[in-house]
C-alpha cells in the first residue's frame, strides 16, 4: 500500500479496526480493515453504533477470503515471513482477519450495563478498541466474569485470563485486582479451585 493512502487510513481509524459482519445475541464477528489488524485476545472492544455494545475478543482467525483457495506454503528457505508479504502484496487482498467477541455488556444512556444487549449490533457497524477509561470502568465490576465463564465458548477461561491481565495492568495494584476478581471467580466455580488457579496464573503473567 502506498504511504499516502496508509496515512489517510491511520487518521481515519485511530482505534477503529473493522466492521461487524456477523452478530448474534451472545457474540459478534468483526472483519478487520487490515490483515492481522485484530486486537489481542481478551481485549475489550465496542461495536460502536447508536447502541454501543461491549465485547471481549475471544477468537481470532485469519484465512483466505475465498474458502476454495487455500494459501500455498512458500517452501523452505523463506524464513522471513515479512519478506513473503513484501514479495506477495496481493496476500493482503486475499486473506482477511476476523475476530469474534463475546458480548459482555452495552452502554445505555452513558452508563455501562454488564448484561447481554437487548439487540445484537448491526451488521457493518464499526468495531473499535475500547479506551483505557472505558476498560477501567467496565472492569471495575465483576459481573462480566460470569458472562465469560458461562459462555459456550470453548477457551473462555483463557479469554478471561487474557482480559484480566489487560485490565489488571491498568490498575495501580494489579495483584490486588486479580485477587478481587479471583474471589469472584472462585465463588462462581465452587469446588474448582484448580481451574481458578489456572485462570489466575495465566492472568498474572
Amino acid at each position, binding site marked *: 500500500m502506498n504511504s499516502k493512502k496508509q496515512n489517510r487510513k491511520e487518521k481515519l481509524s485511530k482505534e477503529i479496526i473493522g466492521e461487524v459482519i456477523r452478530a448474534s445475541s451472545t457474540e459478534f464477528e468483526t472483519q478487520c480493515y487490515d490483515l492481522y489488524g485484530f486486537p489481542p485476545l481478551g481485549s475489550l472492544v465496542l461495536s460502536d453504533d447508536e447502541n454501543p455494545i461491549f465485547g471481549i475478543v475471544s477468537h481470532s482467525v485469519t484465512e483466505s477470503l475465498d474458502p476454495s483457495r487455500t494459501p500455498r506454503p512458500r517452501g523452505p528457505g523463506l524464513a522471513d515471513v515479512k519478506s513473503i508479504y513484501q514479495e506477495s502484496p496481493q496476500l493482503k487482498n486475499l486473506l482477511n482477519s476476523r475476530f469474534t467477541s463475546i458480548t459482555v455488556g452495552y452502554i445505555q444512556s452513558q452508563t455501562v450495563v454488564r448484561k447481554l444487549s437487548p439487540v445484537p449490533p448491526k451488521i457493518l457497524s464499526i468495531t473499535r478498541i475500547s479506551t483505557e477509561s472505558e476498560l477501567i470502568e467496565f472492569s471495575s465490576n465483576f459481573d462480566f466474569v460470569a458472562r465469560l465463564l458461562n459462555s459456550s465458548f470453548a477457551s473462555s477461561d483463557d479469554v478471561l485470563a487474557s482480559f484480566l491481565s489487560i485490565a489488571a495492568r491498568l490498575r495501580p495494584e494489579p*495483584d490486588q485486582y*486479580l*485477587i478481587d476478581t*479471583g*474471589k469472584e*471467580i*472462585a*465463588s462462581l466455580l*465452587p*469446588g*474448582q*479451585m*484448580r481451574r*481458578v*488457579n489456572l485462570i*489466575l*496464573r495465566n492472568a*498474572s503473567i
Partner: protein
Amino acid sequence: MNSDEKFEQLKQNVNAEDGWSGVIVGGSLSDGLEVRLSSESSIEGVKVGRLVTIEGKTHRFFGQVSDVILESSDRNLSIYSEEISEGIMAKVATGTAAYGKIKVQPKLSIKTSDTSSSPQSAKTVPPHFSKVAVSAHSDIELIFGKEAPGKFWIGSPLDMESKLCLDINEFTKRSNGVFGKSGTGKTFLTRLLLAGILQSGKAVNLVFDMHSEYGWQGYSETENHQVKGLKQLFPSKVAIFSLDEEHSKRRGLTPDYVVRIGYKEIEPEDVEILRESLSLSPQAADAAHSLYRHYGKNWLLEFLNTSGTESFNSLASQINVNQGALSTLHRRLSGFSRYEFMDTTSVHDSVNQILRYLDRGINVVLEFGKYGRDTDAYILVANLLTRRIYERYAEHKERALSGIGDEPTPLVITIEEAHKYLTPELANQTIFGTIAREMRKYNVTILIVDQRPSQIDEEVMSQLGTKLVCLLDNNKDVDSVLSGVSGQRKLRSVLSSLDSRQQALVFGHALPMPVEIRVRDYGTPESYKSLGFTDPTNKKDLSQINQDKSDLFG
C-alpha cells in the same frame, strides 16, 4: 436492599486488619447460628466470646461468638493445597474456597424501630443472610447500659474499647461470687466491685480482708508495685479495722479500730464451723454445745482453764460427753489462746463499732494481718462477726418492717476462702449459708471470692445472683460455676479460653446476657483518676481541687 448489596455494604464495614463480618447461612436458636465470614475478613480477628450484632429484618439481635471453624467448599482442596497455598491464589482461596465460619449464640433481641427499651432475650433467630458484625459501642451501651451513677464500668467486652457496665443496684440484690484460680485477678476484680458498690451508695461493704489487700495497699504481681487500697482512694468512705495492729502500723496505717474478740463472744457454733479445719469429730464438736449449756457464756475460758485428768473426768461425766472427745476439743481450742486479739476480760464492742460505721454508710475493711495466714482465725472471726451483725441487721430490718425507723443500708459482706466453710456439710450451719440462701431478706448479701467453687455447697452456688468468673481449669470448678446456667457448653468454651489474668466471664442476674470481659485496669494513676481519685500531692490536681472548691463555694 438485596442481600448482595447488604454484603457489599458489609464489606466496607470491615476496616482494620483484624476486622471481620459475615452473613447468617444456617443454624438454630438452640445450637447457635452459622455465620459465613466475608472473604475480606480475617479469621484470626475473630475471638470466641466476642459480642456481635445481627441485623435482622425487623429485629436487631445480639449474640456471642461461640466457635470458629475453617471450612472449604472444595472437597479436593487438600489435594492441591500446595499449588494454591502461595501468592495471589492463596489470597483468592481465602474467603472463597477456604473460608471461615463462626458460630454465634443469639442471646438478645430488640425491635429495630424500638429506641427506648432494652433488649429482651432472643426467642427466635434472624433470617438467612442477615449480616453479622462486631457489636458497636452503641450496641454495648444498649445492652449493658451507659456508665452512670449506679452503672459501674467493670471492664470492656473482649477486644473492644467500649465500657461495659454493671447495674450495681441489681448486683447487690443478691449474693454474688468472684471465682477463678489463683493469680487470675479475683482480688483486683473484687476491689473494683467494692469501689463500684461504694461509689453507688446503694450498699455498704464489710470486707473480711484476709490478705490485707483491699483496704490499704494491695500488691500487683505483674507490675511489682503497691496498688492503692480503698481507704487510700476514698478516705472518707472507708474505715479500716484491724485484727493485727502491729502489722497494720508496719504498713503505715493507723487503723480506725483495733478489733478484740472476747472469749465470751465465742459460741459453740463458731467451733462447729471450724470442725473440719480443727479436725474435730462430730462428738467433739457437740461437746462444745454441752459445755455451753454447762458453763454458760463463759464456757470457753472455763473449759480452757480446766486442767488435770481428774477435773476432765468429772467434767466429762457431768456433761455426759466422751472423755476422749472432750480432751481432743480441749487440745484444739487451746490454740485460740495464741490469738492476741482474744481477750479474757471484757465483752468487746467490735460489732457495735462496725455497725456504727456501716450505719453511717462507711465501708469497713477488716484487715487480718498475720492472722490472714491462719484460716481458723479467719473463719472464726468472720463467722462470729457476721453472725452478730446479721442478727442486728435482722432486728433492724424487722423493726423497720413493723414501721419503726428506716431500713438498714444494704450490706455486702465480702469473704474469701469460702470453700473452707461453705462446704455441703457446713453450709446449713453457718451464717454465710443462711445469708446466701435468703437473698436479701435482711438487706445483707455476701460476695464470695474463691478459687475452688466446686467445694462450695451446690445450693449456695445456685443462689448466687451474679458470677464473675476468671480462668478456671479444673473441670469440677467449671461445672459448679456454670451449673444451672443455660448454654453451658458454649460458656464452658468461652471460659476455658479466657486469658490467665484480668479477664472474666460475667453472667447472671445483673447482666442481660453473659459477657466475656477484660477487667478494667486497676493500679495505674489513670485508673485511680477514673475512679474519681485526685492525688492531693499532685499540684495540678490540687489546684484543680481548689478550683472546684471555689466553683462550689464561690
